[in-house]
């Protein structure tokens, strides 16, 4: 890892480049993300409260669909996140494979479960939205079917990562799979969309076609931003734990752990077992 960024004979690197270099160092990343996470959760909380208030309390019901359109404020942002996280995971995977940076590897693998969770929420909320709208809990429409295939892609990445024993090798294999998946994603998405129009020409779209009213658009956009803060907070939180787990025996970790346990001699072994 090149740390000699400010050598006197070289021109001073910009602050951004320096910052990115520092992020690659586990103790620095651990400390920095630790300070960032509470703010991210706070922003998530504020945006979610505001968005849900606008959507659930103040916002109107739909002319055609009635109250059930309110499910849109959790379904659509979750669906958007499920796709975005896969793209981010693949991007981080690309960096990992080309430059072998450990922190991007950890961030990529930590993204997968979060993306899978959002996919699950999108599927469940979409299914529940479908029941009052179409009369059935499951319809093989383009969006739900795509989400299902996306879930399988996520499960594949997570499954491969967990199946290989050595962590760095497992991460590289899973990153390659994520890359292959992201190349196929547009193909899958469009072929499913087209397949759906072929077999169900009368399918109804959730948002009913052309434009969406401002009173519904605002809560939707606010929730879309809110879930991004959730992703950032959760991602950093997971990445920090993975760093701890992988660097269990390293020196920097010792400085991080609060040394608050009193040393009382050999008996401490027995007392510990209750934990």
């Amino acid at each position: 890892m090149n740390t000699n960024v400010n050598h006197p004979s070289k021109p001073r690197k910009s602050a951004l480049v320096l910052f990115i270099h520092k992020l690659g160092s586990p103790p620095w990343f651990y400390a920095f993300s630790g300070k960032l996470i509470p703010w991210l959760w706070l922003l998530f909380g504020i945006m979610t409260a505001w968005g849900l208030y606008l959507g659930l309390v103040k916002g109107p019901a739909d002319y055609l669909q009635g109250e059930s359109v309110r499910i849109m404020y959790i379904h659509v942002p979750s669906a958007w996140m499920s796709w975005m996280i896969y793209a981010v995971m693949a991007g981080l995977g690309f960096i990992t494979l080309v430059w072998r940076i450990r922190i991007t590897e950890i961030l990529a693998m930590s993204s997968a479960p979060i993306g899978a969770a959002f996919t699950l929420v999108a599927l469940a909320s979409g299914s529940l939205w479908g029941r009052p709208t179409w009369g059935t809990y499951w319809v093989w429409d383009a969006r739900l079917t795509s989400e299902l295939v996306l879930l399988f892609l996520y499960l594949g990445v997570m499954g491969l990562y967990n199946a290989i024993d050595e962590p760095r090798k497992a991460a590289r294999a899973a990153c390659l799979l994520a890359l292959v998946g992201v190349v196929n994603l547009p193909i899958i998405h469009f072929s499913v969309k087209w397949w759906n129009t072929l077999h169900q020409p009368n399918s109804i779209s959730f948002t009913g076609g052309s434009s969406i009213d401002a009173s519904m658009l605002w809560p939707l956009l606010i929730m879309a931003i809110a879930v991004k803060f959730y992703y950032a907070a959760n991602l950093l939180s997971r990445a920090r734990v993975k760093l701890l787990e992988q660097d269990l025996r390293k020196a920097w970790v010792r400085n991080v752990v609060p040394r608050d346990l009193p040393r009382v001699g050999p008996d401490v072994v027995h007392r510990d077992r209750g934990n």
Partner: protein
Amino acid sequence: MSHLPFIWAAYSVGTIVLLWCALAPLVRKRVALRDIRRLIQLEERHLDSDS
């Protein structure tokens, strides 16, 4: 048919899944910190017994 139970169900599922997703790393962190502490104690015990 009232839409209310479906709205409640959708948001409940969302909350449960995302809450679990958010809490999982905290649980693992506690386990990791416990393992680190145990390692530190083992090493200190070895140091003590060596000296």
